[in-house]
């Protein structure tokens, strides 16, 4: 970034980001210093990419005009704790209205690729058109700025995500990598391809410990473009943090925000995996396609039970003290860590474990490992599989595909493998399309075409307005269980104001664990912006920029053809409520109808401006 002001909210045009546009058809690369239009542009991530996507009218995800935008946030590669994020944006192959065009989406990954990318001097890379043959792309720091080169990727074809990264590591020292797997290469049959970003730990240990940009099929779009991997090569550029940033970082580790994610031996809650323990007392852990049975089966995957047989390591991305990864290894006879099996984050573990009727840690780990190596979004894959298993349980006389049902590990494993290879497009295309083909959409746990993360929709009507899938973009997921909120006023306020602020982290380059309770409009973020970039931004300006970015996302959905009726929740939740969930029942049609009217009434007051901007005004 070239920064010629201290006031990014009022003088955004005095801030320039470095963009490279790669025409994959011709091989031409152009570099520009682009002046920012507003604070969203300055912050980066989807705040910027959605403005560029809004300028394009895309009716099919797989077309030359749909770009793949790779960018970072203002604090990616900075000394602020968690400043690791890379964002991948484009029109999604998987998220689409029932009838209509694909929808703009972004997907974020940690690991160290984002920081390395930023340290090459580039802020944004835009891929146009598609390459005729498979390529990978190297971004390095040249003498007078970043350089982008396209190389043949014939030798990477068909390899797993991790194997691609390991191959490239042999050729590129001091580099980090982003790679798709076979799923992304089979983009026609698999719309839920993910992108794996390398971690230091992975490159050092040789174990497949990537972090993933999973949501929205950005790996499939990358596959369509015939780009199999990205290499970001540069020196590390981290000086010692200033005293202010040091204090912020300490507060991130010791303060309330990240404590639940800290390792258990440091007094923390042990990563997102701990959500099992919190939701099980309410019987709210999704089981067998979001139908908890009121029994204690989910407890089999509690940490205290898994650690009887496995070795658990708490690890982190480069320099991050939150240490949120819980990696499961086999246990050697002497108690030390044996072979690495998988990461146990809550969503992959639940959606590829308990929610498929798999309650064995080794089996769940095997499915997560396969999903990661084929390069699929664990949420989309897990939810689509659970739909299929549920269909088969309801139709034993005419089951689909290999006839798998809940808990049948060998058959479920076969489904994952064959989906990743492109042999089961019924699954690879996601739950909405599969449910359209069966004619039984009521128990497809998706909203607006994107599968729900592992929180029961009964506990979160806010899902309906999330613009990038569940809790990642509508932080209302804990409101009922954590706060006991059952009144409409609280829900309207949360959906239309406070909780949407969670998407701010997908602009600025930080993980939401930086300050999960408060969003990016906090003193800690302001301190980092001042110290790292000499920028003075008020908390109110940050909140406004995040809100504007969210509303732009919402109108982009409407422009692509969503009807108001699609802003809803899976019908089963309304019509066949689960008797085992021990939470107050706010998921009635009446409650939701009133909530919907009030939420739209608030949003509508502000949407006009954005409807004009994205060219959707009547």
């Amino acid at each position, binding site marked *: 970034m070239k920064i010629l002001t201290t006031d990014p909210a009022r003088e955004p045009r005095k801030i320039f980001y470095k963009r490279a546009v790669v025409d994959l058809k011709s091989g031409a690369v152009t570099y520009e210093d682009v002046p920012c239009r507003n604070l969203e542009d300055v912050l980066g991530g989807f705040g910027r990419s959605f403005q560029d996507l809004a300028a394009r009218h895309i009716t099919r995800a797989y077309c030359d005009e749909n770009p793949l935008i790779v960018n970072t946030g203002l604090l990616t590669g900075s000394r602020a704790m968690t400043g690791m994020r890379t964002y991948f944006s484009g029109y999604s192959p998987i998220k689409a209205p029932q009838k209509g065009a694909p929808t703009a989406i972004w997907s974020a990954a940690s690991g160290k690729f984002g920081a390395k990318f930023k340290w090459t001097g580039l802020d944004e890379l835009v891929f146009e058109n598609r390459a005729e043959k498979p390529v990978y792309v190297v971004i390095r720091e040249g003498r007078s700025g970043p350089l982008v080169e396209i190389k043949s990727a014939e030798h990477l074809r068909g390899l797993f995500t991790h194997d691609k990264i390991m191959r490239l590591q042999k050729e590129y020292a001091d580099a980090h990598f982003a790679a798709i797997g076979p799923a992304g290469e089979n983009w026609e049959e698999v719309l839920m391809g993910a992108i794996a970003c390398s971690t230091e730990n992975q490159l050092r240990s040789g174990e497949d410990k990537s972090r993933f940009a999973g949501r929205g099929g950005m790996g499939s779009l990358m596959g369509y473009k015939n780009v199999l991997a990205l290499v970001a090569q540069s020196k590390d550029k981290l000086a010692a943090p200033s005293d202010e940033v040091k204090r912020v970082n300490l507060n991130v580790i010791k303060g309330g925000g990240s404590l639940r994610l800290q390792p258990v031996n440091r007094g923390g*809650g*042990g990563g*997102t995996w701990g959500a099992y323990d*919190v939701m099980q*007392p309410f019987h709210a852990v999704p089981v067998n396609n979001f139908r908890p049975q009121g029994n204690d089966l989910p407890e089999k995957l509690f940490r205290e039970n898994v650690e009887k047989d496995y070795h658990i390591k708490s690890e982190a991305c480069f320099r991050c003290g939150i240490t949120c990864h819980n990696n499961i290894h086999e246990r050697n006879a002497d108690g030390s860590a044996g072979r690495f099996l998988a990461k146990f984050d809550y969503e992959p573990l639940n959606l590829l474990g308990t929610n498929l009727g798999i309650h064995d840690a080794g089996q769940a780990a095997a499915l997560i490992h396969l999903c990661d190596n084929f390069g699929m979004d664990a949420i989309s894959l897990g939810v689509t599989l659970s739909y299929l298993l549920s269909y088969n349980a309801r139709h034993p006389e005419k089951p689909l595909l290999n006839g798998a049902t809940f808990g049948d590990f060998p058959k479920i494993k076969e489904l994952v493998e064959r989906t990743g290879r492109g042999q089961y497009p019924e699954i690879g295309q996601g739950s909405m399309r599969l449910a359209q083909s069966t004619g039984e959409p009521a128990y497809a746990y998706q909203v607006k075409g994107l599968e729900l993360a592992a929180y029961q929709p009964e506990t979160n009507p806010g899902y309906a307005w999330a613009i990038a899938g569940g809790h*990642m973009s509508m*932080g209302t997921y804990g409101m009922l269980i954590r*706060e006991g909120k059952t009144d409409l006023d609280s829900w309207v306020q949360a959906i239309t104001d406070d909780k949407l602020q969670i998407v701010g982290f997908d602009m600025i380059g930080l993980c939401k664990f930086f300050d999960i309770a408060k969003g990016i409009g906090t003193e800690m973020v302001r301190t980092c912006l001042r110290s790292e970039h000499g920028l003075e931004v008020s908390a109110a300006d940050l909140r406004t920029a995040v809100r504007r970015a969210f509303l732009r996302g919402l109108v982009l959905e409407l422009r692509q053809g969503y009807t108001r009726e699609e802003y809803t929740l899976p019908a089963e939740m309304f019509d066949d409520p689960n008797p085992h969930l021990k939470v107050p029942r706010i998921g009635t049609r009446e409650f939701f109808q009133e909530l919907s009217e009030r939420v739209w009434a608030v949003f509508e007051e502000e949407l006009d401006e954005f409807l004009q901007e994205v060219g959707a005004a009547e």
Partner: protein
Amino acid sequence: MKVRVKLHGVFRRGRFKEEIRDYPAGTRVVDVVRELGFSDQLLGTVIINDMHADIEQELKDGDCLMLLPLLDGG
């Protein structure tokens, strides 16, 4: 007074799952939390007799108190 205390998640480590415990009248949830030695920052949800409650709430004889760690998605 007697209060049934149920702990969940990491709060159980080195403690107990469920116990009936004796407290003097006027004991609040926060007093129980301090006595058991958790960090308030890790405490996410307080339930008394199946209802969400506040950390400052006073307990009564025969109450069932459930303490859960923070829930935040990942």
